[in-house]
Structure formats: structure tokens, C-alpha cells
């Protein structure tokens, strides 16, 4: 295998402050701080005018109203130029009737891509892979997803993650595998023996054992 990495790259991690940026976008110059108080999904795509990315942009545009209802803004990114982004967004609208309602960063310098670890040389040395950063209203990174160049993202999973994170924050609970809104949630496991004994007797809880109890919200 070809050697292409000479020094370790520091990648953003969950629970950390999202790296600041000052970027040129299709909606003007934007800074991370401009999104303070809103949740933000920052996502990268490999290149404009490519098939998988086009299907993803249409899909992101389709879930945009659902994200807005949840207080979430969308921000796309690739290392293409501003003119390319504008031309592509116009082309998507002309050919499919779908208007791209969110800004797209033109990261020609790769400043933002590198700060967020969006270039994976094993996939492509020049393009960003399909990353999704879910950043909360305090600008903390809450979820990171990486998809390879060949696989388009699942929008329902992105919405599901936002719902799960916001439910967790609002109620101090966790969500089980395949959880969706309306399903029972997991209550935090007790951390004392007395708590464990009380937990299994707790009315309204559905317990497999003291450490795995669910409740309806």
C-alpha cells in the first residue's frame, strides 16, 4: 500500500468544541459562531456535478423542513469553487425542481476540511469523504458519521440521531438500538446496590434487570 501519511492528523472528537471556521459559502461568508444557539449539521461531499452527491443534495433538501422544525441548520462543504457550487445548485433545481435551501462552503484551501478531518487519503487524496458532523446549540460535536465515496447517506438515520440526541438532552435518558420517536427510552442504570433493588420495583418501568429498564416518555 502506498505511504501517504507522514504525520498524525488530529481529528475532532465527540464532546469537544467544534473547530471554528470562517468560510466562503453560497450564502456569503459564514463563521461557526453565526450558528450559535441553533443545532448545525455540517456535511461534506466529494464533488459537485457527481451522481451520488446529487442524490444526497436532493435528499438533504427534502429533509430540510424537518430539520428546521428541530432547530437544526444545514451546511454543506466540498473543495469545489463557489462558482461550481452555484452552478450545481442551479442545475439541480433546473433538472429536478429541487431548490437547495442551505449554504455550501467552497473550501478550495481545504482549511475547513482538514480541521474537521474530512479528507481521508485512503479514499481520495483530493476530495472530502461523506462526513456528517452533528453539532449542538452550544457548538459541541455530538455525532460524527463517515461514509465512503460510493455510499450515499441515509437521511432518516440523520433525523433519527437528531431526535435521539434532543430527547436525551431534554429527558436525561438514553435511547436503545433502533429507537425512534415514540418508543420507550432507557433510564440511566442506578449506581448503588440500594438503587438497583429499588429500580426493579419501580412502577411504570419495563425492566429486563436492574441495569436495563425502559420507560415511556
Amino acid at each position, binding site marked *: 500500500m502506498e505511504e501517504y501519511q507522514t504525520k498524525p492528523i488530529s481529528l475532532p472528537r465527540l464532546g469537544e468544541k467544534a473547530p471554528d471556521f470562517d468560510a466562503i459559502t453560497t*450564502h*456569503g*461568508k*459564514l*463563521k461557526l*459562531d*453565526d*450558528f450559535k*444557539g*441553533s443545532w448545525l449539521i455540517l456535511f461534506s461531499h466529494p464533488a459537485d456535478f457527481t451522481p451520488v452527491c446529487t442524490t444526497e443534495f436532493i435528499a438533504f433538501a427534502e429533509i430540510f423542513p424537518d430539520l428546521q422544525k428541530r432547530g437544526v*441548520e444545514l451546511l454543506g462543504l466540498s473543495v469545489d469553487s463557489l462558482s461550481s457550487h452555484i452552478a450545481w445548485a442551479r442545475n439541480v433545481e433546473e433538472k429536478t425542481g429541487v431548490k437547495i435551501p442551505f449554504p455550501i462552503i467552497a473550501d478550495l484551501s481545504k482549511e475547513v476540511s482538514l480541521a474537521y478531518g474530512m479528507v481521508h487519503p485512503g479514499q481520495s487524496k483530493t476530495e472530502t469523504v461523506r462526513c456528517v458532523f452533528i453539532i449542538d446549540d452550544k457548538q459541541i460535536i455530538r455525532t460524527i458519521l463517515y461514509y465512503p465515496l460510493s455510499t450515499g447517506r441515509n437521511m432518516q438515520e440523520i433525523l433519527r440521531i437528531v431526535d435521539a440526541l434532543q430527547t436525551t438532552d431534554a429527558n436525561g435518558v438514553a435511547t436503545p438500538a433502533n429507537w425512534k420517536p415514540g418508543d420507550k427510552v432507557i433510564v440511566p442504570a442506578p449506581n448503588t446496590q440500594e438503587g438497583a433493588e429499588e429500580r426493579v420495583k419501580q412502577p411504570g418501568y419495563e425492566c429486563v434487570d436492574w441495569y436495563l429498564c425502559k420507560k415511556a416518555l
Partner: protein
Amino acid sequence: MPCINPEGKPTETGKKVLQALRDNGLCSAEKVAETTGVALFRVRSGLRDMIEAELVEMVADKYDITEKGIKLIE
């Protein structure tokens, strides 16, 4: 720029922001976003551009339209 075009004139979004400041006086970015229906991130970015273009000024942590700004939307 979302609020100013390359000729230095306010865009439709820019005009909405300037009109909100003219009609409501000193405003926070949040108040401008609420009044205009423009997304808060775009308001913040636009206000920054319009301060640079001297169409808007900052007073403490709020925003006000300048004489130059008023002339551009009259």
C-alpha cells in the same frame, strides 16, 4: 455576500434586515431574525457585512441602521 451585492447595494435579504432596523430601532440579531423571518446565521453574517459597508453600526451589543443605510432603502 448575503446582504450586499458586489456593487455595494443591499440584496433583498439585506433590504429586509435594514428595514427591520429602521422600523424597530436598536435591535439584537435575534430580534432582526424574528422580525424578518431570515435565518439567524444569515442575519449575523449579513450584519457583519453591513457594518463593514457602514450601512449598520453596533451600539453596545445591538445593531442600528446608519444614515447611509437609510438612504439605500429609501
